[in-house]
């Protein structure tokens, strides 16, 4: 048997082996695709309405601070001194969680990579490793899926470039990855939302907020929680992000 004859046989085996099943699924698949598209369009329309109602723009504090500190490369003592002027070490922040308003005692976190955030210190703690700061539950509950919010910085890639890369990575792990969109609430960023499954309470959710670091790079905020925790941890992470401010480094 020549190579050409053999290759022809491989092609024919694949054609004959898949022909009937492929033909049978064509119409059914089309109906399911249309249904999924319509459902997703409805969800997105509803989500856009929600965003419009919540728009607050970039944090005024962030704008003031960027103007006050100018353009730097690394956060240094001078910048940190100025932070102290603008940010109290603790404050009460009003959170809206599961429809109720709560006054949460919040602590200032000054990230070495050049940001500040107020976090809910009653429920969370921050684990730092110099490159990535991870906000985790103070008291972990055995058996619950992972819950955290991570803050890191990529100094080489823009939010747009990272969005493409992260979307591709998420597609390998999650059954639904929404198209990256620009948001202004809770802060100005490129936002990517992914969920695996979507029917069980423990189905994982990942959100990325990619924030321009104003120097060609990106602050990457990754939130991980699960479907049932969307109204709890998801909502708290969202509220805390409203208090996120970039500190231009010197």
């Amino acid at each position, binding site marked *: 048997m020549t190579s050409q004859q*053999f290759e022809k046989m491989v*092609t024919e085996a694949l054609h004959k*082996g*898949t022909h009937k099943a*492929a033909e049978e*699924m064509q119409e059914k*698949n089309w109906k399911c695709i249309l249904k999924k598209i319509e459902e997703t369009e409805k969800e997105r329309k509803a989500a856009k309405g929600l965003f419009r109602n919540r728009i607050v723009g970039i944090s005024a504090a962030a704008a003031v601070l960027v103007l006050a500190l100018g353009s730097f490369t690394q956060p240094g003592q001078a910048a940190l001194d100025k932070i102290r002027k603008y940010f109290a070490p603790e404050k009460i922040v009003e959170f809206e969680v599961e429809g109720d308003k709560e006054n949460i005692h919040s602590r200032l976190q000054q990230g070495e990579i050049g940001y500040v955030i107020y976090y809910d210190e009653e429920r969370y703690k921050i684990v730092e490793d110099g490159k990535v700061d991870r906000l985790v539950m103070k008291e972990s509950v055995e058996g619950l899926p992972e819950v955290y919010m991570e803050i890191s910085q990529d100094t080489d890639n823009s939010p747009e470039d990272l969005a493409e890369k992260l979307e591709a990575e998420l597609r390998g792990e999650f*059954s639904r990855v929404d198209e990256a969109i620009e948001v202004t609430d809770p802060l100005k960023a490129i936002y990517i939302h992914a969920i695996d499954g979507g029917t069980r309470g423990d189905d994982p959710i990942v959100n990325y907020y990619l924030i321009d670091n104003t120097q060609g790079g990106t602050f990457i905020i990754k939130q991980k929680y699960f479907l049932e925790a969307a109204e709890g941890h998801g909502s708290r992470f969202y509220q805390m992000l409203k208090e996120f401010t970039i500190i231009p480094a010197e």
Partner: protein
Amino acid sequence: MDDILLQRVRNKDKEAFEELYNKYAGFAARTALAITRSNALASDAVQETFVRVYFNIDKFKPGNPFEPWLYRILVNECMRLLKRGSRITYVDSYSESGLEIPHEDDHYFEEYEELYQAIGDLEEKIRIPIVLKYLKGFRETEIAEILKLNVNTVKSRLYKGRQKLKKAITGSLKGR
């Protein structure tokens, strides 16, 4: 022709999207079946792929060939579902679909059925390039682009795949 059709899909024209689906779904389904070896997974992979095409069409650069982009999404989706379903036992549709090969004569039937089975038995990293080349007719450079691999890696995997299939088919012919 595709450029005009894709532009209409960009404008969320559902008729254009149906036209695009009808044009590409057949081979996409065959490819997914050959990769996943499961009717259920193949069906899910095709559905997710076209939903993603619809919502992410803006990311496809006009002027580039559409099929490598489509198949990259499809292959990623198949691999994701295979990974996800690795703990679940699916009915092996290779054995089901073998019955679909027409019995023009028994010898002819067995030969193709065994070869199809042998393709299904190849390890995933070898099976996927073989399917893309021999089912869809992609060039090695296109397969490299779809799988994000070096073209020499693709050549090597295709070579290994052919050797294994030849061995399988020769063994089966000798056994008759």
